């Protein structure tokens, strides 16, 4: 179960990362197209921001699990482990509530975007599939956050600190130079 879960989250992250890479490439190509050939890629403005939005929210789902949100970290220096555990549960529950309400409202936004017929600027691609993908990412975030709360409550090593800013652990840093 745990393994399957980890694998799913990794897969989500890979997809989000590829989308992110694709957006980078899109902007570079559009800039080249404009300077080199006076033909920017149509809708590069809308497509890049919308696809990046999808990547960000799918990344948000993985953050819900990995605890790489930016936080103030004084409590672990002050309180005992059991108290710290309950503080963690409190914090993650608020994250869960926020994410859930956001997902609920985003579903409404998806419905209203679908009904409104709003499109991109140049190619007139409907916007609703992007909003739907973003909503899906939020649903993913609810699941990952819930899973994390269960882990905090049940595991003794709940306070293992992953590097909360760069998101990378020491062992991932390359030493080949």
């Amino acid at each position: 179960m745990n393994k399957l879960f980890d694998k799913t989250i990794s897969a989500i992250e890979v997809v989000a990362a590829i989308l992110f890479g694709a957006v980078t490439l899109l902007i570079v190509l559009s800039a080249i197209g404009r300077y080199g050939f006076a033909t920017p890629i149509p809708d590069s403005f809308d497509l890049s921001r919308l696809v990046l939005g999808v990547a960000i929210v799918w990344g948000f789902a993985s953050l819900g699990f990995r605890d790489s949100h930016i936080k103030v970290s004084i409590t672990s220096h002050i309180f005992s482990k059991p108290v710290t555990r309950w503080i963690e549960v409190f914090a993650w529950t608020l994250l869960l509530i926020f994410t859930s309400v956001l997902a609920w409202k985003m579903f409404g936004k998806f419905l209203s975007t679908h009904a409104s017929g709003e499109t991109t600027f140049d190619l007139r691609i409907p916007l609703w599939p992007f909003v739907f993908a973003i909503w899906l990412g939020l649903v993913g975030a609810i699941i990952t956050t819930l899973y994390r709360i269960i882990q905090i409550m049940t595991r003794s090593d709940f306070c293992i600190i992953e590097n909360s800013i760069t998101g990378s652990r020491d062992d991932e840093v390359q030493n080949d130079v």
Partner: protein
Amino acid sequence: MTSEVIAISGFIALFTMMFFRVPIGVAMGIVGVCGFGAVVGVKPAMNLLSQSPLRTITDFNLTLIPFFILMGVLATNSGMSRELFRAGNAWFGWMKGGLGLASVGACGGFAAICGSSVATAATMTKIAYPEMKKANYSDEVATGVIAAGGTLGILIPPSVVLAVYGFITEQDVGVLFIAGLVPGLLAVLLYMLAVRFWYGRSLPEGKAFSWKEGFASLKGVWAVLLLFVCVILAIYLGVVTATEAAATGAFLTAVIGIARRRINRRSLLNSLIEALRTSVAIYTILIGAILFGYFLAITQVPQEVASSLLDLGLGRFGTLLLILLLFLIMGCFLDAMAMIILMVPIVFPIIQQLGFDPIWFGIVVVMTVELGLITPPVGMNVFIIDNLTKNVKITTIFKGVLPFVLVDVLRLALIVAFPAIVLFLPETMS
């Protein structure tokens, strides 16, 4: 309840939640929505969530942030940060305390391709800290140098914080980046002087220097130099927008890494994932801060603060000083990004009314925020180093940054007294 009471309660709730480990962005978002609800009504406040967060994550003006982060991550993963340190060491290492100077130099060099301070501090902790330990540097010096050097990440362009400042105040991000260049170099110089003259005697002796080694090390840093020059020159000459410069910079870093066989398909993917995670953490703060901003706007508290500040009759510089003091105090408790987003919309109208240059103020604000990154109790850079080093007390790190805090204040005073230090370079732009 009056709007003022609601606003003050909002701030108290915000700090309480932040203290109890709620992600900063989420805390701001919750207070923003609840506070908006208290003023306008629950239903409209909830409806904020169907517009604002979606707009934030799909805002084109913010896309340069993840690109610049990606550029920094790719640079690290292709070994550029290590090369910078090696070059710094080869050239400064012979002096007493040379390794410390090399670390400051490497931080400055890395800041030139990385947009974030905590990332600069984290990267340099992994590279420079072990070397300094090996050379018998005290923890105080080793961590202090890196914590302070890391703050250069948001002053020397590219800078995520400057980008956000530009977004909020509708200033040209390219111009802001160019404006950060000279103050950034000044910072490197002052930090080096601080290392030499504050810690001078206690520092270990350097290692002998060989010219051969010195020039060999320069071969390694051409890539950093090339990238920085390409990106900054493109912005300076106005060939591309800052967003395009960011995407192209990230793309070129990947290309150089692949060409030098430092980056393969796997590490490219890992870099993308890592950059995405950092970006998401920043976006979470942006989402929350923008919601919180709507709450403040609806209470009209910023306008009232502004008018009562002006009513104090402290004069131009008196008011500026008071604002900077406020930033400094807030900086002791708040994250850099969060502070920019919270405070700038409140004070920016005052600054404009007083006739200060918005670009110059951007640099001043970033330098004030830099100070907040290394001052207790909430110094983000210090926390990062604390997380990454074993057996170093957080108080030791705070003690280690003291001389750098002093030269930071000196630099701030210089730039307030002589705005030309900031402005002469951007004024030469087309």
